[in-house]
């Protein structure tokens, strides 16, 4: 991996204003009822007003994981980890919209686009980056809670921030996907990511996949052998068939 694009989020400065969610929705034409990003909320127990933990908001989006369960769940390899920038991408031409990757994401970062019939999720605003701009959520944030950049570039702001103590990642205990969204010092809530679920058909498919490819490979070899045979051995005259 040449680069690993990532976000470091100072969730303590989030005020839950929804600017990032709206900016993302407009930039990426996300249809009503669906979101590419979110703000989770930790609401303190108000039964004990005298000993109140502060309110806490936690912005997030696709975590562009190093161990992406969504990639493992995709039957057509439409979802993959880009080896140039480390983002998890969806090749919309290959996506068959089966939705297997949706429960495979512990963060609920994916949705099936109701019109395009393919899966969609955060791509760190790829088109904006191509224009030299930052992701929409990063640019618009009032308190600049989100910092975006390349982890592998030691001069980047994200790399600098990651050197500080108490960096945390929000992970499900049973499915640590090695996310690339990092939170500064502390964050809450942390108990919301779910265990990645891969549909059994996909698991079966993935399990037999090597054998299937072996089978296909043997077939290809057979076809090639036949081709070679046909090229090397002169065909019998066609008339023979008509006899």
């Amino acid at each position: 991996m040449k680069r690993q694009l990532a976000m470091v989020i100072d969730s303590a400065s989030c005020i839950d204003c929804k600017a990032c969610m709206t900016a993302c929705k407009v930039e990426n034409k996300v249809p009503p009822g669906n979101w590419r990003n979110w703000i989770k909320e930790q609401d303190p127990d108000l039964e004990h007003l005298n000993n109140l933990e502060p309110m806490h908001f936690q912005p997030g989006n696709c975590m562009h994981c190093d161990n992406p369960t969504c990639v493992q769940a995709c039957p057509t390899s439409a979802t993959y980890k880009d080896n140039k920038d480390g983002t998890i991408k969806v090749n919309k031409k290959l996506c068959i919209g089966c939705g297997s990757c949706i429960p495979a994401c512990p963060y609920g970062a994916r949705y099936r686009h109701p019109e395009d019939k393919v899966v969609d999720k955060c791509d760190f605003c790829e088109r904006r980056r191509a224009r030299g701009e930052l992701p929409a959520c990063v640019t618009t944030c009032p308190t600049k809670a989100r910092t975006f950049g390349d982890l592998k570039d030691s001069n980047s702001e994200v790399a600098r921030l990651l050197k500080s103590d108490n960096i945390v990642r929000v992970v499900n205990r049973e499915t640590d996907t090695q996310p690339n969204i990092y939170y500064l010092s502390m964050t809450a809530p942390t108990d919301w990511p779910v265990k990645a679920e891969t549909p059994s058909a996909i698991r079966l498919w993935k399990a037999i996949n090597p054998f299937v490819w072996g089978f296909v490979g043997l077939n290809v070899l057979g076809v090639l052998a036949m081709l070679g045979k046909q090229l090397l051995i002169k065909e019998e005259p066609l008339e023979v068939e008509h006899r």
Partner: protein
Amino acid sequence: MPAKPDTAISRRSFLKWTGAATAATAVGARTPVLHALVPSEETTASGKVEHHFSVCDMCLNKCGLIARVEKGVVTKLDPNPKFLKSRGMLCARGNAGIAQLYDPDRLKYPLLRKGKRGEGKWQRLRWDQALDYAAEQLRTIAEQYTRCGVLFSPGSDMQSTFVHWFAEVFGSYNVTTHESACLLSRNRAYLDTFGEVPFSDVLHTKYIIMAGANRFEALITPDSIDLMTAKQNGCKLVVLDPRYTKTAGLADEWYQVRPGTDMAFFLALMHVIISEKLYNADYAAEKLFGLEQLAEHVKQYSPEWAEVECQIPAQDIRRIARELAAAAPTAIVYPGRRTSDYVNSTQIRRSMAILNGLLGNWDRPGGLLAARQVGLSKPELPEAPWYEDNPEDRLDMGRAHMMFEEEGSFKHMRDAIIEAKPYPIKGWLVYKHNPLQSEANRQRTLEMMVKLDFILTVDIAMSDTAWMSDLVLPAPSYLERQDPATGLQGSSACACVVTRNPVVPTLFESKPVFWILKELANRLELGEHFDFTMEDYRKQQLKNLPDGERALREDGVYYNPSKLYGVYEGRVYKTKSKRIELYNERYAEMGVDPMPVYRSPREVPAGRFRLVVGRNAYFTHCTTQNNGLLHEFMPENTLWINPKSASALGIQDGDLVEVISAAGKGELKAEFKSGIREDTVYMASGFGVLSKGLTNIYGKGACIAEVLEDYSDELSGNMAMHETFVQVTRKVA
């Protein structure tokens, strides 16, 4: 009008520009740009992408933005990183400006009412028909009832200045704006203490007390953003609020104060500060007027006394007083903005202003700041005509002690129109203002409308007020308009000038109110007073700012590097005593308490609740609830109710309830909130609409204007929206 090519930003300059944001970081815009990601070549682009500066109009903050236009369509609004007042941000509403521009619910052409008011039967008119009709109606009223027989109500808008000018030229002094539903009591209090309305240097402060303000939800630039930065820099935030808002939740200390008792808290703080001599005596001797009277006055207000009133422990009041005094003058008792809450709001806010004065939190870093020089000139326009037959004063004159002559009071104006005293008003011109949703007691506003022969509303969408009007004219959104220049105060962030040019051509048949008024003026033989173009007007505004036009063109904003601190050095205060007035002699002369005297708010009767209203970060008053992007965050409003109180009434979370006051009623779902007082309920504004032209929200939630009774502040005439007691009952389906 098509977007002017010279105002378009080329992609190259845009890239250069976002690079410049790094420089802006140093001065506080905090918009980081990752250089590694900026391509060295212009690699993008199927099709032409243009970028245009504009200024947001989704609320009153006027944040600088850059609109991206692809193939003639606005595809994204991004913050202008050079716009320091907003610290280079654009909030949810700012981002949703696109949904206002391309809203299918927009008014598309002039509409004349057919059938009864509010029946929703309209006839499409051509513009010349609509304007002829409007001019004829205005002329008829003027002839029969004098020119003051027409009330003008401009909303907060960069073109509203022309509505004020039109009213003046037409000859009516009867103008009410949105302000008497908002901040007049705060303005009154600070004018009568410091001689002007201050701005808060939140960024540099070390201690801030917020009461009757919710800055992390009701976003005000730069205060809301600076509050977070200040907190990160160690500033302490103390919040008084009967409900657990996001500001309360993110504060260092939150006190669930008994509503309407804030003054007791501030008087007790002064009691401690004066009795323990925690103020700067030299400063007091030089700058303050009436310290002796104040010292005597606050003797009666001990923290132990205040504890009973506010339900805030006396030991905390004492400690906060000492902490605040220790931090002063790098401390702020936050003045707030919407202070339309109680019948004594001016005096409540004056207790806060006096405390700021006592501690010298004024004209120095981290305190309250005087307005800075912006440098815009007032264009010279031909003198407005004088009409001999006009009455002497505004219709609402004298109905409150100390109203602002240019603002009046909507509540008192409405009462006077209904009573037709001292003279009748028969016409109403409304521009981007929606009193049927924003002014307490909707039934009274409807009653007032019955008295009117002609109601003309100019707006972008079919607001409730438009829905009940006789003639509705479609206005373009801010992204389609050319506007005058306007000056903005951003405390330590800036004093700046912004303007607007069209980002895209106007949609449908919409026309800016400037054009509409010009056409009406021509039809009323007043054309000479509107014989100027927007370019002329703006040129005159900028005539003393030689660099203004260039800066607006190249940066989207002009900064005046005017004096920030020490503005009052060697200058006298614009008060009667020429000092900061702890004791106000003018008040005493008028029979008004010269210092705030505490009177306990009315007790909430058994079985009732006090209704409070407020904001969140994704709605502006009653204007954005129908926005296609924003309404997804809150498709309908709910009644915040404490679970304990609800259970006693057999109400479950999510149940449909009826909220009833002496003014009206509404139905909405109950939402359990353990962070609201047991004697208080809350609901968001902008729902329960009358207009079927607001398709996303029609039939959803309840309307605050319907339920709120129309109490008002005794001094300023500002609406008092936290004085209403309601009954809440479970609605059986």
